């Protein structure tokens, strides 16, 4: 007997909001890689000479850099939030019969995010 199978189009991810958000989440990886490249450039310049470093800092003020940073920040922030929200699904802890609530675990992750960010700022920018 014949069956009917609905074909899946290559634009399936545009057909529902959750799927669309999923694909956006996956595309954040491009910006992660992009920023990795930027970091390499930054390190190369900072490790090179004062002139190279100064030129770099100057170029950071350019509109190109602004746009790059703004877009990267948006997507990477989306990556960070989705990543942290999904963490409690993977880290499951029980205290006796009771499961430690997802909100508590997510809260702990967000807290450590804040702490890490503070430490990094302090290390780079000094007091």
């Amino acid at each position, binding site marked *: 007997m014949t069956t009917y199978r609905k074909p899946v189009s290559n634009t399936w991810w545009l057909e529902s909001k959750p799927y669309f958000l999923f694909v956006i989440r*996956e595309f954040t990886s491009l910006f992660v890689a992009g920023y990795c490249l930027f970091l390499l450039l930054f390190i190369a310049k900072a490790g090179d000479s004062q002139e190279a470093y100064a030129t770099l800092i100057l170029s950071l003020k350019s509109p190109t850099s602004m746009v790059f940073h703004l877009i990267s920040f948006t997507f990477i922030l989306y990556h960070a939030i989705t990543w942290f929200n999904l963490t409690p699904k993977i880290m499951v802890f029980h205290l006796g019969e009771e499961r430690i609530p997802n909100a508590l675990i997510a809260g702990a992750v967000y807290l450590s995010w804040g702490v890490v960010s503070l430490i990094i700022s302090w290390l780079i*920018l000094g007091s």
Partner: protein
Amino acid sequence: MSKSNEPVLWFLFSAGGMISAMVFPILLIITGVILPFELAGEVTFERIHNAVKNPVVKLVLFFVIALPFFHWAHRFRFTLIDIGLKPISFLVSLLCYGGAITGTIVAAFILWKI
């Protein structure tokens, strides 16, 4: 079916995902706003230069860059497969992981040279 070697890739993906989520937003704020506009006063060349020359910092930076490269490689590979490039999945994998390996080598080279 046989057990896959996917775990090692997934491990790198997860580690990179966690590092980039934890560290990149604040770095973006620093390199995108604070440094160019000197919001935290002047951060001198010497300060940054000496820092990146420190072997411990170098090691940390290596992981902070290399692992997110693998995060990208793994995730982007599946993104491309999911949106229709399944037929050339081998090529996709080659490009993605190849890219991450190249990125890692370049990172090691740059850090080594400093």
